[in-house]
């Protein structure tokens, strides 16, 4: 079953809810290696997104995701704003005009998002950022796609890989973003951005499984 426009709307609503529920947790993670705002940043951003969803029920998936991107850039207020903003903007460009997504479309969408985050943040794998959840997720997604799996199962594997990737950030030393100011002391803490990235992918997987 392809991912429908309706699925995307429900994914965004679910993400809003999950990020709201986990706001204190994300902020607590950020307080250890950052400035204690990642939860409120993401909550503020997705609350603004969710307020726009009603007016976007007629937009195609591409237009919808682009609006998510511009909204996040304008409202998040932290480094994660330009990063997630660019991710959704690029995802929207990769799915321009589409009303539904087959597995290759899903992969193309996330590939575009990943490129966006990399370009915006000039970071790579192993620097203790959201990329350490996103990169393994997309690798797992590509593997699932080459196994001809449908989007729901692709997303399920992506979410699992994102969670593993998120946990791998605990041992890493940050070399990008605020956490890099802590140097070696950033090790031993899970990256907040990798955690929100997993939550968003898990929300997508949950929606498609339901």
């Amino acid at each position, binding site marked *: 079953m392809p991912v429908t426009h309706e699925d995307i709307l429900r994914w965004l609503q679910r993400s809003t809810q999950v990020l709201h529920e986990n706001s204190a947790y994300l902020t607590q993670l950020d307080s250890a290696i950052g400035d204690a705002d990642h939860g409120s940043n993401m909550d503020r951003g997705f609350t603004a997104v969710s307020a726009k969803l009603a007016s976007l029920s007629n937009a195609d998936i591409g237009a919808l995701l682009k609006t998510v991107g511009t909204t996040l850039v304008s409202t998040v*207020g932290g480094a994660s704003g*330009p990063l997630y903003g660019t991710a959704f903007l690029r995802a929207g460009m990769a799915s321009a005009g589409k009303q539904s997504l087959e597995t290759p479309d899903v992969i193309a969408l996330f590939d575009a998002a990943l490129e966006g985050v990399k370009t915006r943040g000039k970071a790579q794998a192993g620097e203790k950022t959201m990329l350490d959840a996103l990169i393994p997720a997309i690798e797992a997604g590509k593997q699932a796609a080459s196994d001809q799996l449908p989007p729901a199962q692709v997303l399920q594997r992506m979410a699992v890989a994102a969670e593993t990737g998120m946990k791998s950030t605990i041992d890493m030393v940050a070399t990008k973003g605020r956490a890099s100011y802590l140097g070696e002391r950033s090790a031993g803490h899970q990256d907040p951005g990798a955690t929100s990235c997993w939550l968003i992918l898990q929300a997508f997987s949950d929606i498609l499984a339901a």
Partner: protein
Amino acid sequence: MAVSIVIVSHSARLAEGVAELAEQMSMGEVTIAVAGGTDDGSVGTSLDKVIAALQKASNPEGTLVLLDLGSAVMVTEMALEQLDPSERQNIIISTAPLVEGAVLAAVEASAGSTLAEVAEAADNGHEMPKGKQEREP
């Protein structure tokens, strides 16, 4: 006309304070626009504020953008992407220390220097003497 200066900071007060200090050295001859804090006034950056500051500063001689922390680079780059390419060419994001760079950039800009010269002057903020250097003549 002089090169303009834009201050991007996570704190509104910080941005205004830097502008206040820099303006003392340029005395109204240089446009110094600020983008500090988020839209709702908390600590963070605002794309809309950065775009508005770049527009306010826009002039034929160019604009130097100074930042408080590395993460302000991303929002500034997104703002630049929303401008005309011709406009964007005329803007440099400085790697200088914010306060020291802004003061030196204001001095240089008020002398009618080019954007490249103003950017170089800002980078000299790293060498601004603060005590120790002065103590060892």
